[in-house]
Structure formats: structure tokens, C-alpha cells
């Protein structure tokens, strides 16, 4: 029996994420914890399964140990399937030698045999480092309706931020007429989100051409998209209006975490219509002590809290003792904050111990964001 998938996803998860250091010291960016109980990659993976895409190749390269462990067989996302499901695709050696993935396009090129197993009509290319809730199925349908060769998801950004992105100009039908990667003088405010749908045959043709060009950086934004545009292919923009953040820097990572707070958060995590799935670690539920004071915060499991916490996102297995104050913070798993310590406007990575009466960070209005790297002790 011939077997086939209509659309598979290729998720680029190999980047180093150096601007997120020290959070990415020993972990690939997609495996960095987010929002108390998630990892960054959970958003893209959950979007896939919520959009009826059940075959996902995850391309790994930088610090893959924890990411691989986290992904496992893909069971938290119901991607542990006999045909399809989640596949981790690392760089490999072959009879003609082997190579690291040279760029985003080359990573896909090197995994043509994986793609061929599913003979998909369409390929969805995703990044593992964006926080958003998006229905790819609607985008795919638009791609099909337009008869496009490639559809690029875009969002409207303020003009002053436009030069940080790949910027698209479109005609009245949404067809892309011009594409500029990080232009100094942007002609439009439609920014690429790094989410692409390709018709498989066209993608393969242009990946082959890109590979033949020794000058190429083998990158989708820099090389493949401009080449397709120059070749007269039909490229469309798909305008996305929901929440989307690139959490590539420490301050954007902190802000996106804060977006999960409030009575009507910008990024709603408790969303029955669009669940974000994650791998569980088993902790008992959180205990709040006699002196606990919680205001505007998210809190995962296994915590013992007897201090004051406001405007913060807490992971699991955290101890906050009586008299400690935590404000405007992202606190990851296995952190202890002793009596009388004050922690303000900070990201505290895993396994940090903040001793009694220590001061970390300062007022959000007047100080810089403080980051405490994993495993540190603060006195």
C-alpha cells in the first residue's frame, strides 16, 4: 500500500541562540524552559498537532542532549506514531563524507530521504524558537487556494522595527513582489515570521540549485526565497494577526514570559481551544504556606512558597521562604530563595540557590535585567 502525507513539518531546532546566553550555555534554544512548565519548542510542536500535522522532523545540531531527551518518542504531543510522528534529525556521516548543517536550507537538503518517506505534497518549515499559537492548516489551505509555490507567514510590525526582519512587498492579491532581508529602509511593514509552506517539488528544485551555488549561505531568507522570486515563482504572503514573539534575546524572552500574566493575558496559556502540550516531570502540587502572598503570578507544580511573589512566572520545585520577596521575575525549576532575600527584575535559571538576605537585581524602572546562570549560588 502506498503511503503518503499531505503535509509534513520540518522544525529547525539547531541554532545556538547565543544572544540568550547564559540560558543556552548547555541547552539548545528550543529546549529552554518557558512560561513555568513549557519549553520554547512546545509551541511549534503543539501548533503542528493542533493543525492536524502529525509528521515532524526536528533538525538538531547545537547541544542536543537535553533537547533529544525532552522530545523522546514524541508522546506528549501524540507524535509517537508508527507511520509519521516525531523524528529527531541530527547531522550525519554518509559514504561521501558528512557535514554539519551549513544553513537552514542545507539542513532540509540533507534530509531529503526523510521527506521522501512521506512523499508529502507540501512542506511546512518552522523555527523552534518562536512563541505563538498559530493554525498552520488555515495557512496551508490558503497556499493551496492561491496555487502558490511558497507561502510566507507575515505579520504587520511597527515601521521602526521593520529593519530587524525580512520585509515583504505584496500586490493586491497578496503575491510577493519584493523581499528584502533586514533592509535599512523598509518599503513595507510586512515582516516574515520564519514560517513557510512550500510545494514540495518546487522546494526540492530550489534546494538543489542552492546547493550547487558555492557562494550561497544556504539560508532560506537570504538565498532560497530571493532565488525563487528571481525565478518568477509564485510566492504569497499569509497575514497572521495573533500573538508571535521571537524570544531570541534575554529581554524579549523575559517580556514574552510576562505576557502570560494578567487577567486577560496577551498570551493565554490556559486555552482549551489551543492546548500547549509539554513533557511532564512528576512533582506534587504546590503548597502555599501561612505567610505566602501571591499576586499576578503563574506557578507550576512542586513548589513550597511561604514568601511574597508578584508579577512573576514560577517553574517547578521552587522553595521561597518566609520573608523573601520575588518581583518581576522568571524563576526556573529547582531554585531555592531563602529568608529575607529580595529578587527583582531577574531571570533565575535552574538549580540556583539564593541565600538568606541576598539581593538580586533591582527595580524594573531603574535597573537592567539581571540573569543568574544555572547552578549558581548567590550570597
Amino acid at each position: 500500500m502506498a503511503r503518503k502525507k499531505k503535509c509534513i513539518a520540518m522544525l529547525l531546532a539547531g541554532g545556538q541562540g547565543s544572544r540568550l546566553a547564559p540560558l543556552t550555555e548547555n541547552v539548545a534554544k528550543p529546549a529552554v524552559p518557558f512560561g513555568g512548565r513549557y519549553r520554547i519548542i512546545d509551541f511549534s510542536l503543539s501548533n503542528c498537532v493542533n493543525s492536524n500535522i502529525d509528521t515532524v522532523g526536528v533538525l538538531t545540531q547545537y547541544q542536543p542532549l537535553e533537547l533529544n531527551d525532552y522530545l523522546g518518542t514524541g508522546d506528549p504531543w501524540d507524535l509517537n506514531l508508527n507511520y509519521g510522528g516525531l523524528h529527531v534529525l541530527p547531522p550525519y556521516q554518509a559514504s561521501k563524507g558528512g557535514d554539519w548543517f551549513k544553513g537552514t536550507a542545507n539542513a532540509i537538503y540533507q534530509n531529503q530521504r526523510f521527506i521522501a518517506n512521506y512523499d508529502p505534497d507540501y512542506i511546512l518549515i518552522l523555527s523552534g524558537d518562536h512563541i505563538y499559537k498559530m493554525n498552520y492548516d488555515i495557512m496551508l489551505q490558503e497556499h493551496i487556494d492561491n496555487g502558490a509555490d511558497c507561502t510566507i507567514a507575515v505579520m504587520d510590525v511597527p515601521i521602526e522595527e521593520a529593519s530587524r526582519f525580512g520585509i515583504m512587498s505584496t500586490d493586491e492579491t497578496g503575491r510577493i513582489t519584493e523581499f528584502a532581508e533586514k533592509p535599512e529602509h523598509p518599503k513595507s511593514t510586512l515582516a516574515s515570521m520564519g514560517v513557510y509552506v512550500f510545494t514540495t517539488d518546487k522546494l526540492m528544485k530550489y534546494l538543489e540549485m542552492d546547493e550547487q551555488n558555492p557562494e550561497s549561505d544556504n539560508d532560506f531568507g537570504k538565498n532560497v526565497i530571493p532565488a525563487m522570486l528571481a525565478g518568477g515563482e509564485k510566492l504569497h504572503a499569509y497575514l497572521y494577526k495573533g500573538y508571535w514573539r521571537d524570544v531570541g534575546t534575554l529581554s524579549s524572552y523575559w517580556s514574552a514570559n510576562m505576557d502570560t500574566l494578567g487577567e486577560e493575558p496577551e498570551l493565554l496559556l490556559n486555552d482549551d481551544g489551543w492546548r500547549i502540550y509539554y513533557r511532564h516531570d512528576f512533582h506534587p502540587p504546590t503548597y502555599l504556606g501561612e505567610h505566602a502572598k501571591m499576586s499576578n503570578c503563574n506557578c507550576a507544580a512542586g513548589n513550597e512558597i511561604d514568601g511574597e511573589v508578584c508579577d512573576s512566572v514560577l517553574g517547578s520545585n521552587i522553595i521561597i521562604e518566609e520573608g523573601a520577596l520575588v518581583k518581576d521575575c522568571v524563576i526556573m525549576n529547582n531554585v531555592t530563595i531563602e529568608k529575607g532575600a529580595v529578587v527583582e527584575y531577574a531571570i533565575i535559571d535552574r538549580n540556583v540557590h539564593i541565600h538568606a538576605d541576598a539581593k538580586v537585581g533591582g527595580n524594573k524602572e531603574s535597573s537592567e535585567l539581571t540573569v543568574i546562570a544555572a547552578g549558581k549560588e548567590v550570597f
Partner: protein
Amino acid sequence: MKMLGLVFADEHDADISELTAKRTFAALPFGARYRIIDFFISNMTNSGIQNIGVVATTKYESLMGHVRYGGEWDLHRSKSGLTVLPPFSFFNGEMRYENVLEALQANISYIEKNTEPYILFTCCNAIGNIDYSAMLEQHIKTGARFTCLCTKHPVNKGSDLTTTEYVLDSDGRIKDIVIHNKVTPGAYVATNTYIMAREDLLDILQQSIDQNKTSLRNDILKPALDESLIMAYVTDEKLLYIDTVSSYLKSNLALLDGDTRRELFGQELRPIITRAGNSSPAFYGEGSVSTNSIIAAGSTIEGTVRNSIIFRNVHIKKGAIVENCVINQDCTIGENAVLNYAVLDKSVNINDKRLLSGYITHPFYVKKNSII
């Protein structure tokens, strides 16, 4: 593997009929995110047991939905694993087993087809973090025929129910088995948990079927006390009993005590595992108050919670006051509602400004899916 495990899921349904109207006893929610069966499966897997049968006779849909193939406990294996054993037409055609012996007799084929030299079988009305491998070690060392689990610390055992107690000699051998109307202080209270050789159990079961015996305690254990070595294994752990709605509330609230909580959940090598939901983190709003409480993920707290156990996906709205309560999954407490000593079953909706008050001995129980 050395030992096969069997849990009787509904030996105690009748004791707590309000909460077991729609589910078997073992599927009762407990401790903000668990069901009772979790403690037994976790204790067994933490003790190295890889083959577990869960004997269920009625209302086992939520039990099966919860444990499924036992994947959470790494029991989803090709050679062994977790098996839910629903009733099937057994020797006398009756559908419901009245006691442990009948439940064992009914599942004789399951006991037969597995090959472990020992078997542990247990009822599930007393919750603790128990190391069954230490119990097995004692069983092997003493050469006992039966080893029976008991405790000197039964917590919240309902006072109006009969209790089985062991009389021990100085070596821990059981000299007598007595039944009292209430717990005798300092007595060794039986938990209905036994270890023995599997082949020996099969012989006993075959004989008991032939001779129409129906009670493990009266027909098997008591007559054998003199000729066979029947040992007690006394656990030092506190055991939390659940046998009335009041003890259900009390045993839940007992988790607010740090030592009890750490004894049960804080044992590094013996974690209690449950089926994962996909809840988001709990959210605590501005102006909310939560003290001395256990609050599971997915909940939204905007009002006041004190001395309570809050399960997953509960919404406590502004101005609401919840004290000394157990609030099960998916409940909503309306604005300015006041609840004291209430036990809310799953998916209860309390409208704004409602007042519900019980007492620790007589909690205000609200059944599943009610709207007040």
C-alpha cells in the same frame, strides 16, 4: 522479576458511597492531582514490581481512563505491565466479589499465567508511601508463609467502622486476629495487604474454591495461625485512611502538614506518579489570598483560599472565600461565595454569593456536576 502485584480497586466502595456513586474507590481523587490508585501503582513500581493487575468489578470507567496502559509508570511494556481485570463470568457466575478471597478466586487465571515467585495483593483504603520491597525482604528472611502489612499509625480511620487488628509476639509473628468496632490505641491495625508465594496462593485458592470458603481472614488466616508462620510487617509510615466523607476531608487536609506531605511525596527514590494532564500553570490574580493550601496547576485563584486542597482547573472568583475545603477538578466558585468545610466533587458550579458550611465531622458534600 520477583513479585506480582494485585490491587483490589473497589473493596471499600460501600464505605463512602457518596463519593463512589459514579466511580470505583481506587479512582477517588486525592491530594489535588492524584487518584488513590496512583499511590498503589507508584508504591509497587517503586518497589520493583513490573507486573500489576488492578481488579475492578463495577464503575471502572474513570479508573481505566486514568491508568490506561500504565505508561506514566513505565508499565506500558511488551513482556509485562499493567492489566485492569474487569469481572468475567467466573466459577459461580456472580458478577460482584464480596471480599478479597472471592476477588482472588475470580482472577486465578491471571495469577496462574504470570511467573513471579511471590505475589503482593492489597486493598486500597489506606494511603502511604510504602516500600513493598522491604516487606518482601522481611518475608523471605523470616521464611513466613504470609506476611501481612499493618500500622500503629492509622490516621483518620472512621470511628464507626470495624477494624481488624493483629496481636503480635515479640518476633512480630501474628498470634491472633481480632475485630473491634473502633481502633484500639496502640494496636497493630491491618491494612489488608499481603505477600506470599504465588504457587502457595494458587493451592490455597484451589482448595478454597473446592471447599466453598469465602473469607481470607476467617477461613484461611485464622485457622493457620498455629501451624503456619504468619508474620506482620509493621510500617513506620503514617497511613491516611479514607472511609467516610469526613475522613476523606481530613486525610486530604492532613497533607497541609509539612511532615505528612514530605513523607508521602518527598521521598526522592519513591515518587508518587499520576497521569499527566496538560494544565497550564496556576494563576494567582492581584488581590488574591492563598495561605496554607495545596493548589494544583491549571487553577485560577482570584479570591481567598485558606487551609484547603484545590484540584486542577478550578476557578475561584473575586471575593469568594474558601476555607477547610476539598475542591475537585473543574469546579467554579462564584464571586463572593463563602465555603467552609465543604467537599466539592468534580465539575461543581457554585454561583455568586452562595454560602455553604459544614463541619469537619460532617462536611458539606456536593455531588459531581451540581449547580448551586
